[in-house]
């Protein structure tokens, strides 16, 4: 090192080196397990490759196939988007629950815990429980509907083409609602109480207090829920796999289950890689859009 004016001599550079040292371990893990596979995945999507044959560069052929021939891809894409579209409904419901358990309601803490309990459950367990509940013969939902005289014949919720997707979505929403509720509850509790008092004196009625104070102040929390909801819709593989495995037909096929089946059931790893790239691009696009919608600070708490 060349003494005073050298690279190492500068305080700023030494600090930089220190920072890099601290970041390095997690960067290495991030590189090995995220960036590297992702990069390889992108390359793979432009190749014809199977475990026993050498890779051949084929350009956009997989994408062309997806676009023109793969009907399952389009169904899976549509279903994934429906899955995503359902999360605002779940968030709205969670907001309702959060408002209730945030009020003076007796036993609010008990309800809060009960509602949240669904979230830490394993998705596999949730899938199995709901499969039982939806069961055509022994399921409690059919039993309840028939006992109350709402339906004459049992419904095969997970076997019926039009019922299967909504039924899986209900199970998904059921699990996520506790999570959304906790996020929104935290947001609600960070709103200073005296804003509501000031608004009451100012003469704003309850509805106006909700729309002019609660909602705007809750915006970062709401968008955090939206982002998590989008991520979750893309990755709720386990629930669908356990409940319907994409069936009947492809009625509950999501991009993620389609990717899994292409790769591990049909051993078309190269094609699955192309599907993954599409899914990744879509995911990136939607999360960036959602974060933009939150003013770039999803999850932040707005303060005065």
């Amino acid at each position, binding site marked *: 090192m060349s003494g005073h004016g050298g690279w190492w001599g500068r305080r700023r550079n030494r600090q930089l080196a220190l920072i890099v040292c601290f970041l390095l371990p997690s960067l290495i893990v991030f590189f090995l397990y995220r960036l590297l596979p992702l990069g390889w995945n992108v390359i793979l999507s432009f190749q014809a490759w199977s475990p026993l044959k050498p890779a051949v560069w084929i350009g956009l052929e997989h994408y062309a196939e997806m676009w023109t021939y793969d009907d399952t891809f389009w169904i899976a894409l549509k279903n994934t988007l429906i899955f995503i579209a359902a999360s605002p409904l779940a968030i709205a419901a969670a907001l309702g629950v959060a408002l209730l358990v945030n009020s003076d309601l007796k036993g609010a803490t008990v309800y809060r815990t009960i509602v949240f309990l669904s979230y830490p459950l394993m998705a596999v367990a949730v899938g199995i429980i709901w499969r039982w509940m939806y069961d055509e013969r022994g399921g409690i939902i059919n039993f309840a509907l028939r006992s109350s005289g709402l339906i004459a014949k049992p419904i095969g919720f997970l076997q019926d083409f039009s019922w299967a997707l909504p039924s899986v979505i209900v199970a998904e929403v059921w699990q996520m609602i506790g999570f959304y509720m906790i996020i929104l509850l935290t947001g609600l509790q960070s709103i*200073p109480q005296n804003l509501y*008092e*000031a608004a009451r004196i*100012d003469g*704003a009625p309850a509805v106006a207090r909700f729309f*002019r*104070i609660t909602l705007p102040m809750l915006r970062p929390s709401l968008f955090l829920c939206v982002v998590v909801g989008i991520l979750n819709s893309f990755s709720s593989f386990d629930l669908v796999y356990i409940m319907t495995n994409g069936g009947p037909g492809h009625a509950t096929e999501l991009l993620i289950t389609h990717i899994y089946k292409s790769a591990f059931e049909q051993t078309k790893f190269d094609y699955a890689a192309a599907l993954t790239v599409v899914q990744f691009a879509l995911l990136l696009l939607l999360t960036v859009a959602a974060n933009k919608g939150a003013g770039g600070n999803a999850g932040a708490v707005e303060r005065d």
Partner: protein
Amino acid sequence: MATVSLRQVRKSYDAQEVVHGVDLEVADQEFVVLVGPSGCGKSTLLRMIAGLEDISGGEIAIGERVVNEIDPKDRDVAMVFQDYALYPHLTVFQNIAFSLQYRGVGKAEIARRVAEAAAILDIESLLERKPRQLSGGQRQRVAMGRAIVREPKVFLFDEPLSNLDAKLRVQMRTEIKKLRERVRTTAIYVTHDQVEAMTLADRIVLMHNGRVEQIGTPEDVYDEPATLFVAGFVGASAMNLVAGRIETGAQGCGVNLGGESRLALPPGRYDAHVGMSVTVGLRPEHLHWAGDSAASMLAGAARVVEPLGSDTLVIFDVAGHELQARLPPRVVRRGGDPVRVAIAPESIHIFDPATERRL
């Protein structure tokens, strides 16, 4: 504009009563300050007037109208909160205009009134900013703008200056005083700071443990504190409170603080209490340096001397009591120096230690 009447107002949370029957008549355009230590019930009382707390007993009337069951928005009061309670996602203009939008005021009229309020408070240049872009003092002005734009019957202030630093607090205190000259509206102001109370109030209501200790002008509560609590609370430096006994002698009626320390009392006034053990109140600023010959004086030795520039605070011992006196500079220089102070008989406050009330 209106009067505010409190008649036997009570507040309890579950079984615990925190405000015990407060009576108060606030005249039209009067500026009344509720003052007391924290937990004395002053903020609760203010919130009951605002309608943010239920009234457990008694009656509150604004003007002629009893408002016990009336919603806050229909009481025609405006409130300034301790932490301003500005809507963080709205601009200053929107914050000030907020209440007008719910009172059927037209757009043009809103713009006119907001501009007027902004001019009074000197915040015209801030109207498009969000609260987080403002300093503490500016936020305080916006909070006041939000109140005055309403032109309410009554202003309620809940410790509006306590989040500001000392210098700004003094400045804003003056601003409030000036504002008061321009906008003459009945106002009720809560603070724990007796200086704020003294400087702002037409009348002070001193509260302690949910009860009113004394109601009076700043001069009243300073000159004639009704109770030991008021005596200790009001005044820039705390009043000396010591035990003594009233006795009569050759020079007339006096109070003995023990040993040779005896102070003359106004003739005739305490004749009925001769022989009684009392608590004697002496304000540090009323004790003055006595010559050698004074008959009625306290002699002792200085323990601590704190020069403050304009005067010097001397802490000294007399007959086993520790007293404070504000003396001219350089009269007493250091600990151990002799101290000889006297006081005008009419400046001595005598309290009954049993009832804690003034005699």
